[in-house]
């Protein structure tokens, strides 16, 4: 058990709380940097996806996990980012500019989607974002002169300052760098007054507004930032898949993105990464497991069943997600004989009235 003695206020918002964290994150960083040497080609491709989905996960975590707003329409932001990137690249805009534009354009769309959020709550907000997703998908299908319609659109490899990133490892480093940047940006934002305002809104809108948090401003900001991150993810996604079509950005994709956050653990940035890794790895595990199962069970529906069971199981038995489970296991061993079951129970009695709605 490690006790951290607080001797300065700034200690609370330090990036690493103690030496151990520096060590372990350093090790993780080294392992990731060295990935092209130890990972197979196939695993590298999975790592690309994990990076991309992590970025999207950060965006969604910001909105769902920290601001407490619901979105069933994030695939639309993914689509906006992907198409912006594809079109700008085709027009010969350099990558640094085009990805910034993808983020900015997604953010501005996010502001528009965020507007109803100022008045809507809970399931009504979910439906309005769902409606928005369907509309964007339909626009992408119908505006054929711009998006190529359902025939799709090809996206070529990234070229950074005249240097074409064609091999897997080069693109991997780009994804990794952007993931780390987005992660640091999120951490930084969440320890700033803006991030604190988000958390206040999540915990109780009424008390947040009583404390002087401008609800309209911060909710819109949260939607915009979340959409911007998702837009960056979308741009990378377009390059990774190298072919985008509206079928990739359906409502089901949105639901999948939300499950990243729920499986990983709502309210932890680690959760976004864990959830992304889980969602990428699960289909592989299932296809391996299919070889050992009777043919009656090993159908195309198996993935849906496992996916749904994991989702239900996590919500029922581990609302804090995979990261919450890890925290509990760690605490159990740190405090070895003294761990109690109720230690992680949330003690927020004022939420009671809100829970009943």
């Amino acid at each position, binding site marked *: 058990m490690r006790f951290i003695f607080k001797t300065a206020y700034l200690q609370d918002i330090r990036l690493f709380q103690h030496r151990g964290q520096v060590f372990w994150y350093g090790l993780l960083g080294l392992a990731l940097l060295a990935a092209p040497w130890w990972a197979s080609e196939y695993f590298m491709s999975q790592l690309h996806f994990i990076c991309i989905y992590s970025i999207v996960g950060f965006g969604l975590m910001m909105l769902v996990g920290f601001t407490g707003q*619901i979105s069933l329409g994030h695939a639309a932001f993914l689509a906006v980012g992907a198409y912006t990137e594809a079109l700008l690249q085709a027009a010969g805009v350099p990558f640094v500019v085009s990805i910034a534009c993808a983020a900015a354009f997604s953010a501005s769309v996010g502001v528009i989607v965020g*507007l*109803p959020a100022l*008045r*809507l*709550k*809970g*399931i*009504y907000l*979910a*439906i*309005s974002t*769902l*409606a*928005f997703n*369907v*509309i964007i998908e*339909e626009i992408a*299908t*119908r505006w054929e002169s711009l998006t190529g319609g359902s025939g799709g659109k090809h996206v070529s490899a990234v070229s950074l300052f005249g240097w074409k990133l064609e091999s897997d490892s080069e693109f991997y480093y780009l994804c990794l760098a952007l993931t780390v940047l987005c992660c640091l940006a999120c951490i930084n934002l969440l320890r700033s007054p803006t991030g604190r305002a988000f958390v206040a809104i999540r915990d109780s809108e*009424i008390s947040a507004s*009583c404390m002087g948090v401008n609800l309209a401003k911060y909710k819109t900001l949260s939607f915009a930032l979340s959409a911007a991150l998702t837009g960056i993810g979308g741009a990378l996604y377009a390059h990774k898949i190298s072919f985008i079509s509206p079928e990739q950005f359906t*409502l089901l994709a949105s*639901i999948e993105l*939300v*499950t990243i956050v*729920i499986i990983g653990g709502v309210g932890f940035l680690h959760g976004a990464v864990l959830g992304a890794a889980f969602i990428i790895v699960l289909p592989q595990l299932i296809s391996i497991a299919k070889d050992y199962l009777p043919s*009656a*069970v090993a*159908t*195309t*529906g*198996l*993935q*849906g*069943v*496992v*996916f*749904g*069971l*994991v*989702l*239900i199981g996590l*919500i*029922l038995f581990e*609302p804090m997600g995979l990261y919450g489970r890890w925290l509990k296991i760690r605490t159990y061993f740190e405090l070895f004989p003294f761990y109690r079951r109720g230690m992680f129970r949330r003690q927020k009695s004022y939420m009671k*009235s*809100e*829970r*009943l*709605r």
Partner: protein
Amino acid sequence: MGLPYWAMILFAIASMAIVGMVAERIVLRPVLGYPAFTVVMITIGLGYVLRGVVTMVPGWGTETYALRTPFSEGILKLGDVVLAVQQLAVIGMTALLCFVLYLFFRFSRIGIAMQATSQNQLAAYYMGIPVRRVNMMIWGLSAAVAAFAGILLAPVTFVHSNMGFIGLKAFPAAVVGGFGSVPGSIVGGLIIGLVEALAGFYLPEGFKDVAAYVVVLVVLLVWPSGIFGETVRKKV
């Protein structure tokens, strides 16, 4: 299986009511009182599981089936107007269902208890309403009504394991009218249906599919809890 149509309807509705109640008992009761989003995610997960299981049942699989009904071929001529009996039957049964549901929610004790539970679980609980049992009945009822809708829809479309996505169209109908209001959902359904049909007729192709969702966005911007939904002010 050779059952007559009416027996099949009853069987389907009853079995779905049981499935709904079982689902409530197993996965939804533990999250009673949690935010709506939790429930939504659980039902999405449940949807994944059930759809997957259906494809695993031998003989059902991923194929598409047609459902034949006693009304399938009939045509009714009223002067110059030609109507398919099929569609008249759908309209008639929907109207009947609406009337029954209206009576149920307006006059029966259980219906009123259900409304009370939807407004405020805690208060309903204090008033002596067995909230858990009522919730279970609500799930059974809603599954039964959905099964009925599925039966009405099946001859018009076809039966396949992904027909559940039509449910996403039902969301706009419920939201436009406002949750918690039976007349609201009828009006909502009418608005969605009319707008969709008119958009399909007058506007270029493609607008038909999004019309419902555009309507939802507009309605929610103007009335944040639907047209007939009651606005709730939270007191501190």
